[in-house]
């Protein structure tokens, strides 16, 4: 499976091989009225699980003009405990209503027993965790009747008991469950810095044939107890230069892949996001030609 066949399975609602932007309420009006030249939009389904109001009003309008991707933040696929059936049912309703071209979620957990912790918490890379996550991915794919993408996380700690590295862990889940992968290049950079490994090497080993989407976002900088760099994935600023370089490297390997600009905190004026998307698209065009894989003709 690759970006073509993933998109193909989503039929006429495919996400084009262009850059998209995370849709924010701050920009609803401007986007609905000016219909800017953007390939697609992505939203967190959790923000559209109410009965009505402006979220649905604007999402319907904007969905009428653009392909849409849903990017879940609350399923807690990495939990040992069961998935929240009510939440899964609400997600299935949204998928039916908005016919997204892609659905993705995180390799993380955020719920423990009844408490929703509202953060993407790390998973130990063990075979037992891999099996549990595969069961959850199967359950999600059955509920929404389509394959999902699983995203590589930003992490700040490691588990002494991990039995494999992150790429092997993710690839194993994807091969076993049939899901695709969402490659968050900022997360690769953040985690590689935080755990002192080579980000380019991570990309080189990543199974790019499974990648259906790429994320780009901003991070902030702190340090740990020993004064070593500790990058925080806060989606609160522009994409950093080394992340652009890593993105160029990833596209050079994978070919053109739908690429999202994520900016969730300290949200700038719309033109700033549009410029980030244009920069991603320019890089995608320049680098994809060098890829071994041929660019595909899915653009609408």
């Amino acid at each position, binding site marked *: 499976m690759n970006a073509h066949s993933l998109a193909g399975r989503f039929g006429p609602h495919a996400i084009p091989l262009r850059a998209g932007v995370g849709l924010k309420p701050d920009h609803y009006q401007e986007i609905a009225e000016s219909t800017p030249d953007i390939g697609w939009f992505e939203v967190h389904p959790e923000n559209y699980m109410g009965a009505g109001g402006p979220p649905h*009003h604007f999402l319907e309008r904007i969905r009428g003009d653009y392909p849409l991707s849903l990017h879940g933040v609350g399923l807690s696929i990495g939990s040992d405990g069961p998935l929240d059936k009510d939440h899964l049912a609400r997600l299935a309703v949204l998928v039916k209503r908005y016919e997204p071209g892609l659905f993705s979620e995180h390799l993380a957990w955020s719920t423990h027993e009844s408490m929703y912790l*509202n953060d993407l918490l790390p998973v130990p890379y063990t075979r037992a965790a891999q099996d549990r996550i595969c069961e959850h991915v199967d359950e999600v794919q059955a509920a929404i009747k389509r394959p999902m993408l699983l995203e590589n996380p930003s992490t700040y700690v490691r588990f002494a008991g991990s039995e494999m590295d992150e790429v092997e862990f993710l690839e194993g889940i994807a091969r076993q469950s049939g899901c695709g992968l969402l490659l968050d290049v900022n997360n690769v950079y953040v985690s590689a810095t935080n755990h002192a490994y080579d980000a380019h090497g991570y990309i080189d080993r990543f199974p790019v044939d499974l990648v259906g989407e790429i994320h780009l976002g901003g991070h902030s900088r702190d340090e740990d107890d020993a004064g070593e760099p500790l990058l925080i994935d806060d989606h609160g600023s522009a994409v950093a230069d080394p992340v652009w370089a890593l993105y160029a490297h990833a596209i050079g390997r994978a070919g053109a892949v739908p690429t999202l600009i994520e900016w969730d905190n300290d949200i700038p004026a719309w033109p700033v996001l549009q410029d980030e998307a244009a920069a991603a698209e320019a890089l995608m065009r320049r680098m994809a030609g060098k890829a071994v894989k041929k660019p595909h003709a899915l653009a609408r």
Partner: protein
Amino acid sequence: MPSLADTQLSFTRALRDPAAPVPAGIIAWSGNAPKRRFDVYRNNVYSSLADVLAGRYPAIQRLVGEEFFRAMARVFIDAKPPTSPMLMQYGEGFAAFLDAFPPVAELPYLGDVARIEWAWSRAYHAGDAQPLDPARLHAVVPEAFAGLRFVLHPSLHLLTSRFPAFSIWHANVEDAAMPPIDLGAGGEDTIVVRPRLSVEVRALPAGARQFLDTLSRGERLDAAAEAASATDGFDLELNLRELLRLGAFCDFTSDEGGADDNN
């Protein structure tokens, strides 16, 4: 390696207890202490949930100050953590929490201001319904008016306070200087409704709460006017006109029949 269940249990316990050591088995690549790394998760949990509460209760945050609000939010989060990833529903019960939270006992109106803010967010996400077009009432013959039964808009909320809760709320969401508020001036009733895309919040005039409560039970207009007239100064015509203009109703039926069946 402990089981995934045990790993997540110890992780969660340590997240919620800032004094707890970092759970065994959690490491930094360098072998150095992982405390600041683990604290990123601790901070994310509480600060992201405090952000949700601050977004839902901006007037409360302005009234008590950001620093105090965030400390208070932490107490609330520990007492009533979210139980669903649908965070648009998080923060229910914050008003009752404020009513009973000893450090804010000197600000007894906070709970009622928070009730307005909670109603605002409920109205924002409520199911949609077209507000009643006042022109439809033109077709009602005068003698049929007394028998009309109005259907309140599904996003409508009514709040009653023994404090000037609406005035305090209004002053604190307009980002204006807080005007002098006379807590002895008596209470205020507030209506919150979202007829189209914008949530509207207004203070209700005398008797309007009784009027709307009676209508909300499906009773006739004359019965609602009768209930409201127990309050001095109730003006039926003014109330009906302003409520229609606000979009507080989405339909009506008539005991006389005939006038309302052509929409």
